[in-house]
């Protein structure tokens, strides 16, 4: 039994906008005579749009209508309608995400990209999506080394570090090709605040209205490249510069990075330098920044690897790497309305799973309280657990008791009881919860999905005759 689903990836970046469609094949890879094991067996990109310049009305505003027209045009070119799309993600990356109308744009995008789409979720997740799309995450699993991808677009550089195909650290910097914009005569139209500060500190003479000087901008680009080398742990240059250019936070220096890949428009120029004579072919500093990165990283060239995808990394990641499947043996009430999007995840430390039910509930209470609005009442949250490997049935019952004691506010509310457990015990646990709650509460109990405190999760409509649920885990915080 095979099932095919269509996924859309839409990336609206600071400088470019792209669309891809891909087709996933989902199959039961276990024998007819065994408990099913349902997996995504193939992902195939079936359509790639051309790379558009993101239409803007002014510095702060995306041209909604123009973006809408691009997307509609690409659907038509691919021969698809919005309702053909089962899953996917719309990502508004870089500086654009902070722009005023990002939310409006996302709203009409959600309608365009099927019922089950994730929206933008901040720099950390975007870095992870780019790293997955680039193939850097997969490289960490294949070679068993720590890898990092640095996605350098127009406005920001999102870095994600991967170990065994899992993101372990992220960082974001205001470093990109469009920190300065020029007119066709080479006059500076715009300088970003962060870069302005950096230039002021180092007496680099760049001012809006002046003609750009190559030597000066090259100096600034070298400083930015040094910030990247510093945060990656290759060589420490200037920590103050690093602080100036940091968006939210740098990398946390947790793992020694063996290989780094670069993606994004500037990333592409690092591996494939611009061959023309012009220094500012795109009326920005992307080409110069790529040159400066090549110079600063020259001593570390043995660590720099070209990824499978560069300029398309984010859109490929959005379209093919955001959805995962739950375990193949799970339990959920048939009348639960799906999809449910952006469910906050609460999780206690693993030791708490050994507590008594009342003790467990006491520890969980403040976390639930956090999502208890005085006017709206208890909001929907999902409880995340580690669970037990090959549990005895007594252990299943013990977990059910913990959940029932801890999740009382949810059980009493109109929300479904959602449990996300890592070990393979979702079906038996879910059934036990149904019995213990007299089959009167809607339950979703999925396993084989790893989530952490602070994550958000989307749960889609069932696939493969209702055996499994697709999920998107949105990790916003890495420690």
């Amino acid at each position, binding site marked *: 039994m095979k099932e095919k689903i269509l996924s859309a990836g839409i990336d609206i970046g600071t400088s470019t906008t792209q669309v891809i469609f891909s087709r996933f094949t989902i199959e039961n890879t276990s024998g007819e005579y065994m408990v099913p094991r349902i997996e995504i067996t193939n992902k195939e990109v079936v359509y790639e749009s051309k790379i558009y310049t993101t239409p803007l009305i002014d510095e702060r505003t995306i041209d909604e209508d123009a973006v809408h027209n691009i997307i509609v045009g690409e659907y038509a070119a691919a021969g698809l309608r919005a309702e053909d799309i089962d899953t996917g993600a719309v990502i508004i990356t870089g500086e654009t995400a902070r722009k005023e109308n990002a939310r409006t744009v996302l709203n009409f995008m959600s309608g365009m990209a099927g019922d089950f789409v994730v929206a933008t979720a901040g720099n950390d997740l975007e870095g992870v999506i780019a790293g997955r799309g680039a193939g850097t995450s997969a490289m960490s699993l294949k070679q068993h080394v720590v890898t990092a991808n640095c996605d350098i677009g127009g406005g920001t550089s999102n870095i994600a570090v991967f170990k065994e195909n899992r993101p372990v650290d992220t960082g974001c910097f205001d470093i990109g090709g469009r920190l300065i914009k020029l007119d066709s005569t080479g006059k500076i139209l715009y300088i970003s605040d962060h870069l302005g500060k950096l230039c002021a500190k180092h007496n680099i003479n760049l001012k809006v209205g002046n003609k750009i000087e190559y030597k000066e901008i090259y100096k600034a680009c070298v400083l930015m490249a040094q910030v990247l080398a510093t945060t990656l742990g290759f060589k420490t240059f200037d920590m103050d510069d690093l602080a100036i250019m940091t968006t939210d936070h740098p990398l946390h220096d947790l793992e020694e990075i063996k290989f780094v890949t670069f993606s994004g428009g500037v990333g592409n120029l690092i591996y494939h330098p611009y061959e023309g004579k012009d220094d500012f072919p795109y009326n920005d500093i992307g080409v110069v920044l790529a040159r400066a990165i090549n110079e600063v990283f020259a001593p570390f060239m043995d660590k720099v690897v070209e990824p499978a995808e560069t300029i398309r990394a984010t859109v490929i990641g959005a379209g093919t790497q955001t959805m995962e499947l739950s375990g193949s043996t799970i339990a959920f009430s048939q009348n639960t309305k799906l999809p449910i999007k952006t469910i906050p995840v609460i999780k206690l430390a693993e030791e708490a799973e050994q507590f008594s039910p009342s003790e467990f509930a006491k520890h969980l209470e403040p976390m639930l309280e956090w999502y208890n609005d005085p006017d709206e009442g208890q909001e929907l949250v999902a409880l995340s657990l580690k669970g037990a490997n090959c549990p005895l049935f007594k252990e299943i019952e013990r977990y059910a008791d913990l959940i029932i004691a801890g999740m009382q506010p949810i059980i009493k509310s109109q929300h479904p009881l959602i449990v996300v457990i890592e070990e393979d015990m979702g*079906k038996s646990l879910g*059934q036990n919860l149904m*019995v213990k709650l007299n089959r009167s509460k809607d339950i979703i109990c999925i396993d084989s999905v790893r989530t952490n405190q602070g994550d958000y999760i989307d749960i889609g409509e069932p696939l493969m005759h209702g055996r499994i649920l697709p999920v998107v885990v949105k990790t916003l915080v890495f420690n």
Partner: protein
Amino acid sequence: MVSDDKLKEIIAQVVGEMMKEAPAAKATTKACCCENVSDDDLEDLTAYELNEWYQVPNAKDEAEYRRLKMVTPARLGVWHCGPREMTNTMLRFRADHAAAQDAVFNEFPKAFLEERGILELQSRCDSKDTYLTRPDLGRRLSEDSANTLKGFYKKAPQVVVFATDGLSGTAIEANYDIVIPAIMNGLKAHGIEAGEPFFVRYGRVACQDEVSEISGCDVCVCLVGERPGLATAKSMSAYITYKGTIGMSEARRTVVSNIHNAGTPAAEAGAHIADIVDIMLKEKASGTDLKL
């Protein structure tokens, strides 16, 4: 043709000469022989998971080799002595083989059933030997057992779940306490009534057909120990039928196999079996007639 006696003579002669030629080897063997070693001083070779049984010295990439071992119970990376396996590998192999033999030949312990108050029935086999040599008798209940079963349920239950030792009593011992409550719980979650479970000694899968006929159940779940291999002796299967009848086609059985710790965890398997029962009751079919 060389006669048997002549052959024996030649062998004795050759062996005698070999012994003479290798006195040093003999001496070494004797030197490392110790007597009166207590079992406590001996390493338990069966204490290791096969996944962790690794003895390649100075491997170029031990971590990668160990990762490879994590995906298979095959005896990889056990090293060698000349063209042969190491002594401990050979002993472990024999220990695993012995566990498999025990699983087949040992009597299923009565105490296990008594402690749990499980009703014991028996097939038409009167011993393990008969069981192994007469599959036809293992497919039917003894007259006494058939009579006992007739009075066991007050009214025909919708679903009957029972276990039989089959080719591995060890598998039933290892999984019973997890899988039975998981199935019962799952059925309850679906609002399905099931009769009290029981045990059939020396049973083969098809004895479930007589159980179906006598009890009058709609769906019959037979948990049976699988023929053990060298990787595990604890693997169990569930054969599930809708309105089974004696002599029916084997194609009407739905099977869930490989229920053990390294396969499908027993609790999840039990929950899955309950779902299958639910579907069978709705679709009124089993085996190849039922699309899952």
